[in-house]
Protein backbone atom coordinates (compact mmCIF):
# COMPACT_ATOMS: atom_id res chain seq x y z
CA UNK A 1 0.00 0.00 0.00
CA UNK A 2 1.24 3.47 -0.85
CA UNK A 3 0.45 5.37 2.32
CA UNK A 4 0.60 8.82 0.72
CA UNK A 5 -1.92 7.70 -1.88
CA UNK A 6 -4.35 6.60 0.79
CA UNK A 7 -3.87 9.90 2.59
CA UNK A 8 -4.65 11.76 -0.63
CA UNK A 9 -7.85 9.77 -1.17
CA UNK A 10 -8.85 10.35 2.43
CA UNK A 11 -8.22 14.10 2.22
CA UNK A 12 -10.57 14.29 -0.77
CA UNK A 13 -13.41 13.02 1.37
CA UNK A 14 -13.12 15.16 4.45
CA UNK A 15 -16.38 16.91 5.00
CA UNK A 16 -16.85 20.20 6.78
CA UNK A 17 -19.49 19.80 9.47
CA UNK A 18 -20.45 22.96 11.34
CA UNK A 19 -20.19 22.72 15.10
CA UNK A 20 -23.47 24.43 15.94
CA UNK A 21 -26.67 26.20 14.85
CA UNK A 22 -28.79 23.87 12.75
CA UNK A 23 -32.27 23.82 11.27
CA UNK A 24 -33.46 20.27 11.94
CA UNK A 25 -35.85 18.21 9.80
CA UNK A 26 -37.23 14.81 10.68
CA UNK A 27 -37.44 11.53 8.79
CA UNK A 28 -40.70 9.81 7.80
CA UNK A 29 -39.18 6.38 8.47
CA UNK A 30 -37.12 7.23 11.55
CA UNK A 31 -40.00 8.97 13.31
CA UNK A 32 -42.29 6.02 12.52
CA UNK A 33 -40.02 3.17 13.58
CA UNK A 34 -37.45 4.87 15.80
CA UNK A 35 -39.07 8.04 17.19
CA UNK A 36 -37.05 7.77 20.40
CA UNK A 37 -33.86 7.94 18.32
CA UNK A 38 -34.89 11.37 17.07
CA UNK A 39 -35.68 12.28 20.67
CA UNK A 40 -32.24 11.06 21.77
CA UNK A 41 -30.55 13.10 19.05
CA UNK A 42 -32.14 16.27 20.40
CA UNK A 43 -31.46 15.37 24.04
CA UNK A 44 -27.80 14.73 23.27
CA UNK A 45 -27.13 17.70 21.01
CA UNK A 46 -29.25 20.26 22.85
CA UNK A 47 -29.42 19.04 26.42
CA UNK A 48 -26.08 17.36 27.02
CA UNK A 49 -23.80 19.11 24.53
CA UNK A 50 -25.54 22.49 24.48
CA UNK A 51 -25.94 22.90 20.74
CA UNK A 52 -28.61 24.93 18.97
CA UNK A 53 -30.70 22.50 16.90
CA UNK A 54 -33.92 24.24 15.95
CA UNK A 55 -37.11 22.55 14.85
CA UNK A 56 -40.57 23.83 14.12
CA UNK A 57 -43.73 22.12 13.01
CA UNK A 58 -43.95 23.52 9.49
CA UNK A 59 -41.46 21.31 7.70
CA UNK A 60 -42.83 18.20 5.98
CA UNK A 61 -41.59 15.12 4.20
CA UNK A 62 -38.94 15.93 1.61
CA UNK A 63 -40.98 13.74 -0.74
CA UNK A 64 -38.04 11.35 -1.11
CA UNK A 65 -39.92 8.06 -0.96
CA UNK A 66 -42.57 9.42 -3.32
CA UNK A 67 -39.78 10.49 -5.69
CA UNK A 68 -37.92 7.18 -5.52
CA UNK A 69 -41.12 5.24 -6.10
CA UNK A 70 -41.55 7.43 -9.18
CA UNK A 71 -44.95 8.66 -8.08
CA UNK A 72 -44.04 12.36 -8.28
CA UNK A 73 -42.06 14.25 -10.93
CA UNK A 74 -38.54 15.53 -10.41
CA UNK A 75 -39.82 19.10 -10.39
CA UNK A 76 -42.19 18.31 -7.53
CA UNK A 77 -39.53 16.95 -5.20
CA UNK A 78 -37.21 19.86 -6.01
CA UNK A 79 -39.94 22.35 -5.13
CA UNK A 80 -40.65 20.57 -1.84
CA UNK A 81 -36.91 20.71 -1.12
CA UNK A 82 -36.88 24.42 -1.93
CA UNK A 83 -39.72 24.89 0.56
CA UNK A 84 -37.76 23.10 3.30
CA UNK A 85 -34.69 25.26 2.62
CA UNK A 86 -36.84 28.39 2.58
CA UNK A 87 -38.18 27.54 6.05
CA UNK A 88 -34.60 27.21 7.28
CA UNK A 89 -33.79 30.63 5.86
CA UNK A 90 -36.95 32.17 7.26
CA UNK A 91 -35.89 31.14 10.74
CA UNK A 92 -32.40 32.59 10.34
CA UNK A 93 -30.38 29.41 9.82
CA UNK A 94 -27.91 28.44 7.12
CA UNK A 95 -26.93 24.97 8.36
CA UNK A 96 -29.43 22.25 7.53
CA UNK A 97 -29.45 18.87 9.29
CA UNK A 98 -31.77 16.03 8.29
CA UNK A 99 -32.59 12.78 10.04
CA UNK A 100 -33.14 10.65 6.93
CA UNK A 101 -30.59 9.23 4.50
CA UNK A 102 -33.00 9.24 1.56
CA UNK A 103 -33.64 12.91 2.31
CA UNK A 104 -29.92 13.62 2.58
CA UNK A 105 -29.44 12.15 -0.90
CA UNK A 106 -32.37 14.18 -2.23
CA UNK A 107 -31.02 17.44 -0.80
CA UNK A 108 -27.53 16.88 -2.17
CA UNK A 109 -28.84 15.73 -5.56
CA UNK A 110 -31.10 18.76 -5.80
CA UNK A 111 -28.33 21.22 -4.96
CA UNK A 112 -26.02 19.56 -7.50
CA UNK A 113 -28.70 19.65 -10.19
CA UNK A 114 -29.34 23.33 -9.50
CA UNK A 115 -25.60 23.99 -9.71
CA UNK A 116 -25.42 22.24 -13.08
CA UNK A 117 -28.60 23.80 -14.47
CA UNK A 118 -29.10 27.35 -13.16
CA UNK A 119 -32.20 27.82 -15.33
CA UNK A 120 -33.84 24.97 -13.45
CA UNK A 121 -32.95 26.55 -10.11
CA UNK A 122 -34.62 29.76 -11.31
CA UNK A 123 -37.74 27.82 -12.28
CA UNK A 124 -37.93 26.11 -8.88
CA UNK A 125 -37.52 29.46 -7.14
CA UNK A 126 -40.46 30.73 -9.18
CA UNK A 127 -42.49 27.62 -8.28
CA UNK A 128 -41.75 28.27 -4.62
CA UNK A 129 -42.92 31.86 -4.86
CA UNK A 130 -46.13 30.89 -6.66
CA UNK A 131 -47.07 28.02 -4.36
CA UNK A 132 -45.78 29.05 -0.93
CA UNK A 133 -44.85 32.71 -1.24
CA UNK A 134 -41.52 31.93 0.38
CA UNK A 135 -38.11 33.40 -0.36
CA UNK A 136 -35.78 31.00 -2.16
CA UNK A 137 -32.54 30.26 -0.34
CA UNK A 138 -29.93 27.53 -0.24
CA UNK A 139 -28.18 26.22 2.84
CA UNK A 140 -24.51 26.85 3.39
CA UNK A 141 -24.10 23.34 4.75
CA UNK A 142 -26.27 20.23 4.46
CA UNK A 143 -25.41 17.43 6.87
CA UNK A 144 -27.03 14.24 8.03
CA UNK A 145 -27.66 13.80 11.74
CA UNK A 146 -25.06 11.01 11.75
CA UNK A 147 -22.52 13.60 10.53
CA UNK A 148 -23.42 15.75 13.52
CA UNK A 149 -22.99 12.90 16.00
CA UNK A 150 -19.72 11.98 14.24
CA UNK A 151 -18.57 15.58 14.70
CA UNK A 152 -19.47 15.41 18.40
CA UNK A 153 -18.22 11.84 18.97
CA UNK A 154 -15.25 12.78 21.15
CA UNK A 155 -17.40 15.04 23.33
CA UNK A 156 -19.81 12.15 23.73
CA UNK A 157 -16.88 9.85 24.57
CA UNK A 158 -15.71 12.30 27.23
CA UNK A 159 -19.11 12.08 28.94
CA UNK A 160 -19.57 8.34 28.40
CA UNK A 161 -20.76 6.10 31.20
CA UNK A 162 -20.24 2.93 29.19
CA UNK A 163 -17.80 1.86 26.50
CA UNK A 164 -18.44 -0.48 23.60
CA UNK A 165 -16.48 -3.14 25.44
CA UNK A 166 -17.54 -6.56 26.66
CA UNK A 167 -17.45 -6.17 30.44
CA UNK A 168 -16.90 -9.90 30.92
CA UNK A 169 -13.90 -10.25 28.62
CA UNK A 170 -12.60 -6.69 28.50
CA UNK A 171 -12.47 -6.96 24.70
CA UNK A 172 -13.90 -4.32 22.33
CA UNK A 173 -17.28 -5.29 20.92
CA UNK A 174 -17.19 -6.30 17.26
CA UNK A 175 -19.44 -3.96 15.31
CA UNK A 176 -20.77 -4.09 11.77
CA UNK A 177 -21.43 -0.61 10.41
CA UNK A 178 -23.95 -0.24 7.62
CA UNK A 179 -24.08 3.01 5.67
CA UNK A 180 -27.31 3.83 3.83
CA UNK A 181 -26.66 3.87 0.07
CA UNK A 182 -27.85 7.43 -0.47
CA UNK A 183 -25.43 8.82 2.11
CA UNK A 184 -22.43 8.82 -0.20
CA UNK A 185 -22.83 6.43 -3.14
CA UNK A 186 -24.24 9.21 -5.33
CA UNK A 187 -22.02 12.09 -4.21
CA UNK A 188 -18.99 10.62 -2.42
CA UNK A 189 -17.47 13.99 -1.55
CA UNK A 190 -20.56 14.85 0.52
CA UNK A 191 -20.10 11.99 2.98
CA UNK A 192 -17.40 11.54 5.63
CA UNK A 193 -14.90 9.18 3.98
CA UNK A 194 -16.77 9.07 0.67
CA UNK A 195 -18.35 5.94 -0.78
CA UNK A 196 -15.26 3.76 -0.64
CA UNK A 197 -14.12 4.48 2.91
CA UNK A 198 -17.15 5.87 4.74
CA UNK A 199 -16.05 6.66 8.25
CA UNK A 200 -19.08 8.36 9.73
CA UNK A 201 -20.17 5.33 11.78
CA UNK A 202 -16.75 3.69 12.09
CA UNK A 203 -15.49 6.91 13.68
CA UNK A 204 -18.22 6.79 16.32
CA UNK A 205 -17.61 3.12 17.10
CA UNK A 206 -13.87 3.62 17.45
CA UNK A 207 -14.30 6.73 19.61
CA UNK A 208 -16.60 4.82 21.94
CA UNK A 209 -14.33 1.80 22.35
CA UNK A 210 -15.63 -0.72 19.82
CA UNK A 211 -13.95 -2.47 16.92
CA UNK A 212 -15.21 -2.40 13.34
CA UNK A 213 -15.79 -5.64 11.46
CA UNK A 214 -14.86 -5.69 7.79
CA UNK A 215 -16.66 -8.26 5.67
CA UNK A 216 -17.13 -8.88 1.93
CA UNK A 217 -20.62 -7.42 1.50
CA UNK A 218 -20.05 -4.44 3.79
CA UNK A 219 -21.14 -1.94 1.14
CA UNK A 220 -24.04 -3.93 -0.29
CA UNK A 221 -27.48 -2.31 -0.16
CA UNK A 222 -29.83 -3.39 2.66
CA UNK A 223 -32.39 -4.02 -0.06
CA UNK A 224 -35.06 -1.40 0.63
CA UNK A 225 -35.37 -0.62 -3.07
CA UNK A 226 -38.42 1.63 -2.41
CA UNK A 227 -41.08 -0.05 -4.64
CA UNK A 228 -39.26 -3.35 -4.07
CA UNK A 229 -40.24 -3.33 -0.40
CA UNK A 230 -43.43 -1.31 -0.37
CA UNK A 231 -45.25 -3.75 -2.69
CA UNK A 232 -45.56 -7.18 -1.10
CA UNK A 233 -45.15 -8.94 -4.46
CA UNK A 234 -41.65 -7.45 -4.79
CA UNK A 235 -40.52 -7.95 -1.22
CA UNK A 236 -38.30 -10.94 -2.05
CA UNK A 237 -35.85 -8.43 -3.55
CA UNK A 238 -35.51 -6.67 -0.24
CA UNK A 239 -35.23 -9.86 1.80
CA UNK A 240 -32.66 -11.38 -0.59
CA UNK A 241 -30.33 -8.41 -0.29
CA UNK A 242 -30.40 -8.42 3.50
CA UNK A 243 -29.91 -12.21 3.46
CA UNK A 244 -26.81 -11.76 1.33
CA UNK A 245 -25.35 -9.33 3.84
CA UNK A 246 -26.04 -11.55 6.84
CA UNK A 247 -24.56 -14.63 5.16
CA UNK A 248 -21.46 -12.55 4.47
CA UNK A 249 -21.08 -11.11 7.99
CA UNK A 250 -21.99 -14.29 9.87
CA UNK A 251 -18.46 -15.78 10.11
CA UNK A 252 -17.21 -12.60 11.80
CA UNK A 253 -19.67 -12.99 14.70
CA UNK A 254 -20.50 -9.31 15.20
CA UNK A 255 -21.92 -8.26 18.56
CA UNK A 256 -24.21 -5.71 16.97
CA UNK A 257 -24.91 -3.66 13.84
CA UNK A 258 -25.03 0.14 13.72
CA UNK A 259 -26.70 1.98 10.83
CA UNK A 260 -27.10 5.61 9.86
CA UNK A 261 -30.20 5.05 7.72
CA UNK A 262 -33.48 4.38 9.53
CA UNK A 263 -34.73 2.15 6.73
CA UNK A 264 -31.62 -0.01 6.89
CA UNK A 265 -32.01 -0.38 10.67
CA UNK A 266 -35.61 -1.50 10.22
CA UNK A 267 -34.86 -3.96 7.40
CA UNK A 268 -31.80 -5.54 8.97
CA UNK A 269 -33.75 -6.06 12.20
CA UNK A 270 -36.97 -7.35 10.67
CA UNK A 271 -35.57 -9.51 7.88
CA UNK A 272 -33.55 -11.46 10.47
CA UNK A 273 -36.90 -12.31 12.05
CA UNK A 274 -38.34 -13.37 8.69
CA UNK A 275 -35.30 -15.50 7.80
CA UNK A 276 -35.50 -17.17 11.20
CA UNK A 277 -39.23 -17.80 11.02
CA UNK A 278 -39.24 -19.00 7.41
CA UNK A 279 -35.91 -20.81 7.16
CA UNK A 280 -34.95 -21.53 10.77
CA UNK A 281 -31.68 -19.70 10.24
CA UNK A 282 -30.40 -17.27 12.89
CA UNK A 283 -27.25 -15.17 12.85
CA UNK A 284 -26.67 -14.22 16.49
CA UNK A 285 -25.62 -16.25 19.48
CA UNK A 286 -27.73 -19.15 20.78
CA UNK A 287 -30.51 -18.91 18.22
CA UNK A 288 -30.88 -15.16 18.59
CA UNK A 289 -30.43 -12.42 16.02
CA UNK A 290 -27.72 -9.78 15.80
CA UNK A 291 -29.06 -6.59 17.42
CA UNK A 292 -29.39 -3.68 14.97
CA UNK A 293 -29.15 -0.20 16.47
CA UNK A 294 -29.37 3.33 15.19
CA UNK A 295 -26.37 5.55 15.96
CA UNK A 296 -28.54 7.64 18.29
CA UNK A 297 -29.40 4.51 20.26
CA UNK A 298 -25.71 3.60 20.51
CA UNK A 299 -24.78 7.13 21.57
CA UNK A 300 -27.61 7.09 24.11
CA UNK A 301 -26.47 3.78 25.60
CA UNK A 302 -22.88 5.04 25.83
CA UNK A 303 -24.16 8.13 27.66
CA UNK A 304 -26.18 6.02 30.10
CA UNK A 305 -29.74 6.54 28.81
CA UNK A 306 -32.37 4.04 29.95
CA UNK A 307 -32.63 1.48 27.10
CA UNK A 308 -36.43 1.63 27.20
CA UNK A 309 -36.35 5.45 26.89
CA UNK A 310 -34.32 4.87 23.72
CA UNK A 311 -37.04 2.66 22.26
CA UNK A 312 -34.99 -0.54 22.25
CA UNK A 313 -38.15 -2.46 23.20
CA UNK A 314 -39.43 -1.88 19.65
CA UNK A 315 -36.69 -3.94 18.02
CA UNK A 316 -37.71 -7.42 16.89
CA UNK A 317 -34.21 -8.73 17.62
CA UNK A 318 -34.13 -8.32 21.38
CA UNK A 319 -31.20 -6.36 22.74
CA UNK A 320 -30.84 -7.74 26.28
CA UNK A 321 -27.77 -9.92 25.51
CA UNK A 322 -26.02 -6.83 24.13
CA UNK A 323 -26.95 -4.78 27.20
CA UNK A 324 -25.51 -7.59 29.35
CA UNK A 325 -22.25 -7.49 27.41
CA UNK A 326 -22.06 -3.73 27.85
CA UNK A 327 -22.84 -4.03 31.57
CA UNK A 328 -25.84 -1.72 31.15
CA UNK A 329 -28.58 -2.33 33.74
CA UNK A 330 -32.22 -2.58 32.63
CA UNK A 331 -35.54 -3.49 34.17
CA UNK A 332 -37.21 -6.33 32.24
CA UNK A 333 -40.55 -5.71 33.95
CA UNK A 334 -40.68 -2.16 32.60
CA UNK A 335 -39.80 -3.00 29.01
CA UNK A 336 -43.28 -2.89 27.55
CA UNK A 337 -44.99 -0.45 29.91
CA UNK A 338 -46.65 2.74 28.73
CA UNK A 339 -45.50 6.27 29.56
CA UNK A 340 -47.56 6.34 32.74
CA UNK A 341 -46.49 2.84 33.73
CA UNK A 342 -49.67 1.25 32.39
CA UNK A 343 -49.62 -2.40 31.38
CA UNK A 344 -49.71 -2.74 27.59
CA UNK A 345 -49.15 -6.49 27.53
CA UNK A 346 -46.22 -7.88 25.58
CA UNK A 347 -45.60 -8.65 21.91
CA UNK A 348 -46.26 -12.25 20.95
CA UNK A 349 -43.09 -14.29 20.75
CA UNK A 350 -41.58 -15.43 17.46
CA UNK A 351 -41.73 -19.18 16.94
CA UNK A 352 -38.08 -19.66 15.95
CA UNK A 353 -36.08 -16.51 16.60
CA UNK A 354 -35.05 -16.70 20.23
CA UNK A 355 -35.71 -13.55 22.25
Amino acid at each position, binding site marked *: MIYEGKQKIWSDYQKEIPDDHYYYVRS*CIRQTFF*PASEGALLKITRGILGRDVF*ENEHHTTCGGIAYHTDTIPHETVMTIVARQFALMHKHGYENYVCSCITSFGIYIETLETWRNFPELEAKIAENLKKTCNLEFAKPKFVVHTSDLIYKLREEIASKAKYKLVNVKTGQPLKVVEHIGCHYSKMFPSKGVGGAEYPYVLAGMVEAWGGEIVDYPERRHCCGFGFRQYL*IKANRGYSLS*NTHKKFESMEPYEPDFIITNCPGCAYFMDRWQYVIAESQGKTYGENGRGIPVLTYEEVAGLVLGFNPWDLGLQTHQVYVEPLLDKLGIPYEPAKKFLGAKGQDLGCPALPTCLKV
Partner: protein
Amino acid sequence: MGMLYDKLMQDYRLREGLNACINCGTCTAVCPAAEFYKYDPRRIVDIVQSGDEEKIEELLRSDVIWYCGECMSCLTRCPRKNAPGLVIMALRSLSIDLGYFIESEKGRQQYLLSRDICGNVLNYGYCVYPRHFDYKSHPEAGRVWEWEEQHMDEVYERLGANLEGGGPGALRKIPDEDLAQLKKIFDLTGATKRMETVKEAGRKKAEELGLTEEEFSAMLYEQSSPKHLNRK
Protein backbone atom coordinates in the same frame (compact mmCIF):
# COMPACT_ATOMS: atom_id res chain seq x y z
CA MET B 1 -33.09 11.35 -32.91
CA GLY B 2 -36.67 10.25 -32.49
CA MET B 3 -39.57 11.49 -30.41
CA LEU B 4 -39.07 9.22 -27.41
CA TYR B 5 -35.33 9.88 -27.22
CA ASP B 6 -35.95 13.61 -27.42
CA LYS B 7 -38.53 13.40 -24.65
CA LEU B 8 -36.06 11.49 -22.50
CA MET B 9 -33.37 14.09 -23.09
CA GLN B 10 -35.70 16.77 -21.74
CA ASP B 11 -35.37 15.06 -18.37
CA TYR B 12 -32.50 16.61 -16.41
CA ARG B 13 -31.77 13.26 -14.81
CA LEU B 14 -30.96 11.75 -18.16
CA ARG B 15 -28.75 14.67 -19.04
CA GLU B 16 -26.91 14.19 -15.75
CA GLY B 17 -26.92 10.41 -15.84
CA LEU B 18 -25.73 9.52 -19.32
CA ASN B 19 -22.35 10.56 -20.66
CA ALA B 20 -21.07 8.26 -23.40
CA CYS B 21 -21.49 4.82 -21.83
CA ILE B 22 -18.65 2.47 -22.81
CA ASN B 23 -20.73 -0.64 -22.12
CA CYS B 24 -18.26 -2.09 -19.65
CA GLY B 25 -21.00 -3.70 -17.55
CA THR B 26 -19.66 -2.57 -14.17
CA CYS B 27 -23.15 -1.30 -13.30
CA THR B 28 -24.63 -4.74 -13.89
CA ALA B 29 -21.89 -6.42 -11.88
CA VAL B 30 -22.58 -4.28 -8.81
CA CYS B 31 -26.37 -4.03 -9.18
CA PRO B 32 -28.50 -5.65 -6.43
CA ALA B 33 -31.46 -5.82 -8.82
CA ALA B 34 -29.45 -7.63 -11.52
CA GLU B 35 -28.73 -10.39 -9.03
CA PHE B 36 -32.39 -10.86 -8.16
CA TYR B 37 -34.27 -10.05 -11.36
CA LYS B 38 -33.63 -10.70 -15.04
CA TYR B 39 -32.19 -7.25 -15.23
CA ASP B 40 -29.17 -5.76 -16.95
CA PRO B 41 -28.70 -1.99 -16.54
CA ARG B 42 -25.83 -2.04 -19.02
CA ARG B 43 -28.24 -3.13 -21.75
CA ILE B 44 -30.82 -0.51 -20.80
CA VAL B 45 -28.29 2.32 -20.96
CA ASP B 46 -27.05 0.93 -24.27
CA ILE B 47 -30.55 0.98 -25.74
CA VAL B 48 -31.22 4.54 -24.58
CA GLN B 49 -27.85 5.69 -25.85
CA SER B 50 -28.51 4.10 -29.24
CA GLY B 51 -31.63 6.23 -29.69
CA ASP B 52 -33.44 3.26 -31.25
CA GLU B 53 -37.08 4.35 -30.96
CA GLU B 54 -38.52 0.88 -31.35
CA LYS B 55 -36.35 -0.57 -28.60
CA ILE B 56 -36.94 2.41 -26.32
CA GLU B 57 -40.69 2.01 -26.73
CA GLU B 58 -40.37 -1.69 -25.96
CA LEU B 59 -38.50 -0.77 -22.76
CA LEU B 60 -41.16 1.75 -21.74
CA ARG B 61 -43.87 -0.91 -22.08
CA SER B 62 -41.86 -3.63 -20.31
CA ASP B 63 -41.39 -4.93 -16.78
CA VAL B 64 -37.64 -4.44 -17.06
CA ILE B 65 -37.50 -0.75 -16.16
CA TRP B 66 -39.35 -1.46 -12.88
CA TYR B 67 -36.77 -3.87 -11.45
CA CYS B 68 -34.28 -1.22 -10.25
CA GLY B 69 -34.27 -0.38 -6.52
CA GLU B 70 -32.77 3.11 -7.08
CA CYS B 71 -29.96 2.41 -4.60
CA MET B 72 -27.56 4.17 -7.00
CA SER B 73 -24.70 1.74 -6.37
CA CYS B 74 -24.18 1.88 -10.16
CA LEU B 75 -23.23 5.54 -10.05
CA THR B 76 -20.46 4.96 -7.52
CA ARG B 77 -18.72 2.37 -9.66
CA CYS B 78 -19.27 3.65 -13.21
CA PRO B 79 -15.91 4.68 -14.68
CA ARG B 80 -17.69 7.28 -16.83
CA LYS B 81 -19.74 8.68 -13.95
CA ASN B 82 -22.97 7.62 -15.59
CA ALA B 83 -25.98 6.91 -13.42
CA PRO B 84 -28.05 4.07 -14.87
CA GLY B 85 -30.36 4.57 -11.87
CA LEU B 86 -31.15 8.11 -13.06
CA VAL B 87 -31.68 6.83 -16.62
CA ILE B 88 -34.20 4.36 -15.18
CA MET B 89 -36.00 7.16 -13.33
CA ALA B 90 -36.32 9.15 -16.55
CA LEU B 91 -37.63 6.04 -18.38
CA ARG B 92 -40.17 5.37 -15.63
CA SER B 93 -41.44 8.96 -15.70
CA LEU B 94 -41.90 8.82 -19.46
CA SER B 95 -43.56 5.40 -19.25
CA ILE B 96 -46.10 6.84 -16.80
CA ASP B 97 -46.67 10.04 -18.77
CA LEU B 98 -47.36 8.03 -21.94
CA GLY B 99 -49.56 5.52 -20.11
CA TYR B 100 -47.32 2.59 -21.09
CA PHE B 101 -46.64 1.61 -17.48
CA ILE B 102 -50.03 -0.07 -17.15
CA GLU B 103 -49.10 -2.69 -19.72
CA SER B 104 -46.55 -4.49 -17.53
CA GLU B 105 -47.16 -6.38 -14.30
CA LYS B 106 -44.49 -4.44 -12.41
CA GLY B 107 -45.32 -1.11 -14.01
CA ARG B 108 -48.97 -1.19 -13.03
CA GLN B 109 -47.96 -1.47 -9.37
CA GLN B 110 -47.61 2.32 -9.66
CA TYR B 111 -51.37 2.40 -9.13
CA LEU B 112 -50.90 1.35 -5.50
CA LEU B 113 -47.74 3.33 -4.88
CA SER B 114 -49.27 6.53 -6.22
CA ARG B 115 -52.49 6.09 -4.25
CA ASP B 116 -50.80 5.22 -0.96
CA ILE B 117 -47.66 7.31 -0.87
CA CYS B 118 -49.00 10.44 -2.52
CA GLY B 119 -52.08 9.99 -0.33
CA ASN B 120 -49.89 10.03 2.76
CA VAL B 121 -47.97 13.09 1.54
CA LEU B 122 -51.12 15.11 0.79
CA ASN B 123 -53.13 13.99 3.83
CA TYR B 124 -50.44 13.93 6.51
CA GLY B 125 -47.32 15.57 5.07
CA TYR B 126 -45.32 12.34 5.39
CA CYS B 127 -44.47 9.60 2.88
CA VAL B 128 -44.93 6.92 5.54
CA TYR B 129 -47.65 7.12 8.16
CA PRO B 130 -47.92 4.55 10.97
CA ARG B 131 -51.72 4.30 10.96
CA HIS B 132 -51.49 3.13 7.36
CA PHE B 133 -48.64 0.69 7.96
CA ASP B 134 -50.61 -2.26 9.23
CA TYR B 135 -49.30 -5.57 10.50
CA LYS B 136 -51.71 -7.47 8.25
CA SER B 137 -50.08 -6.01 5.12
CA HIS B 138 -46.64 -6.06 6.73
CA PRO B 139 -46.26 -9.31 8.65
CA GLU B 140 -42.50 -8.96 8.25
CA ALA B 141 -42.67 -5.96 10.60
CA GLY B 142 -42.76 -8.57 13.31
CA ARG B 143 -44.71 -9.38 16.42
CA VAL B 144 -43.30 -6.27 18.02
CA TRP B 145 -44.98 -4.09 15.37
CA GLU B 146 -48.20 -6.04 15.88
CA TRP B 147 -47.99 -5.00 19.54
CA GLU B 148 -47.15 -1.40 18.63
CA GLU B 149 -50.14 -1.27 16.30
CA GLN B 150 -52.44 -2.57 19.03
CA HIS B 151 -51.21 0.13 21.45
CA MET B 152 -50.15 2.80 18.97
CA ASP B 153 -51.04 5.92 20.96
CA GLU B 154 -49.57 4.60 24.20
CA VAL B 155 -46.38 3.27 22.59
CA TYR B 156 -45.67 6.50 20.73
CA GLU B 157 -46.31 8.46 23.91
CA ARG B 158 -43.83 6.20 25.73
CA LEU B 159 -41.28 6.79 22.98
CA GLY B 160 -41.60 10.55 23.23
CA ALA B 161 -43.35 11.06 19.90
CA ASN B 162 -46.05 13.65 19.35
CA LEU B 163 -48.45 11.55 17.27
CA GLU B 164 -51.04 13.86 15.68
CA GLY B 165 -50.24 16.55 18.25
CA GLY B 166 -49.69 20.28 17.81
CA GLY B 167 -46.27 21.94 17.68
CA PRO B 168 -43.02 20.23 16.71
CA GLY B 169 -41.99 16.62 17.27
CA ALA B 170 -42.06 13.18 15.70
CA LEU B 171 -45.29 12.35 13.86
CA ARG B 172 -46.88 15.70 14.80
CA LYS B 173 -49.90 16.89 12.87
CA ILE B 174 -48.62 19.00 10.02
CA PRO B 175 -50.58 22.27 10.08
CA ASP B 176 -53.27 22.62 7.43
CA GLU B 177 -51.61 25.65 5.84
CA ASP B 178 -48.48 23.57 5.19
CA LEU B 179 -50.51 20.70 3.71
CA ALA B 180 -52.21 23.26 1.48
CA GLN B 181 -48.80 24.38 0.23
CA LEU B 182 -47.85 20.78 -0.58
CA LYS B 183 -51.08 20.46 -2.57
CA LYS B 184 -50.28 23.64 -4.50
CA ILE B 185 -46.81 22.26 -5.25
CA PHE B 186 -48.37 19.02 -6.48
CA ASP B 187 -50.78 20.94 -8.71
CA LEU B 188 -48.17 23.26 -10.22
CA THR B 189 -45.37 20.76 -10.80
CA GLY B 190 -47.26 17.89 -12.40
CA ALA B 191 -47.64 15.54 -9.45
CA THR B 192 -51.43 15.87 -9.35
CA LYS B 193 -51.60 15.26 -13.08
CA ARG B 194 -49.38 12.19 -12.71
CA MET B 195 -51.61 10.87 -9.91
CA GLU B 196 -54.67 11.31 -12.12
CA THR B 197 -52.99 9.60 -15.09
CA VAL B 198 -52.05 6.61 -12.96
CA LYS B 199 -55.45 6.40 -11.30
CA GLU B 200 -57.38 6.54 -14.55
CA ALA B 201 -55.12 3.98 -16.26
CA GLY B 202 -55.55 1.68 -13.27
CA ARG B 203 -59.32 2.10 -13.31
CA LYS B 204 -59.45 1.17 -16.99
CA LYS B 205 -57.15 -1.82 -16.49
CA ALA B 206 -59.24 -3.14 -13.61
CA GLU B 207 -62.34 -2.79 -15.78
CA GLU B 208 -60.64 -4.59 -18.65
CA LEU B 209 -59.71 -7.45 -16.30
CA GLY B 210 -63.23 -7.53 -14.85
CA LEU B 211 -62.00 -6.74 -11.35
CA THR B 212 -63.30 -4.40 -8.68
CA GLU B 213 -60.87 -1.78 -7.40
CA GLU B 214 -60.34 -3.87 -4.28
CA GLU B 215 -59.62 -7.03 -6.26
CA PHE B 216 -57.31 -5.16 -8.62
CA SER B 217 -55.39 -3.66 -5.68
CA ALA B 218 -55.04 -7.04 -3.99
CA MET B 219 -53.74 -8.56 -7.21
CA LEU B 220 -51.16 -5.82 -7.66
CA TYR B 221 -50.02 -6.06 -4.04
CA GLU B 222 -49.80 -9.83 -3.81
CA GLN B 223 -49.08 -11.37 -7.21
CA SER B 224 -45.76 -11.69 -8.97
CA SER B 225 -44.92 -13.94 -11.87
CA PRO B 226 -41.82 -16.12 -11.44
CA LYS B 227 -40.74 -14.98 -14.91
CA HIS B 228 -39.12 -11.89 -13.37
CA LEU B 229 -36.65 -13.78 -11.25
CA ASN B 230 -33.04 -14.37 -12.11
CA ARG B 231 -32.93 -17.92 -10.81
CA LYS B 232 -29.57 -19.61 -10.82
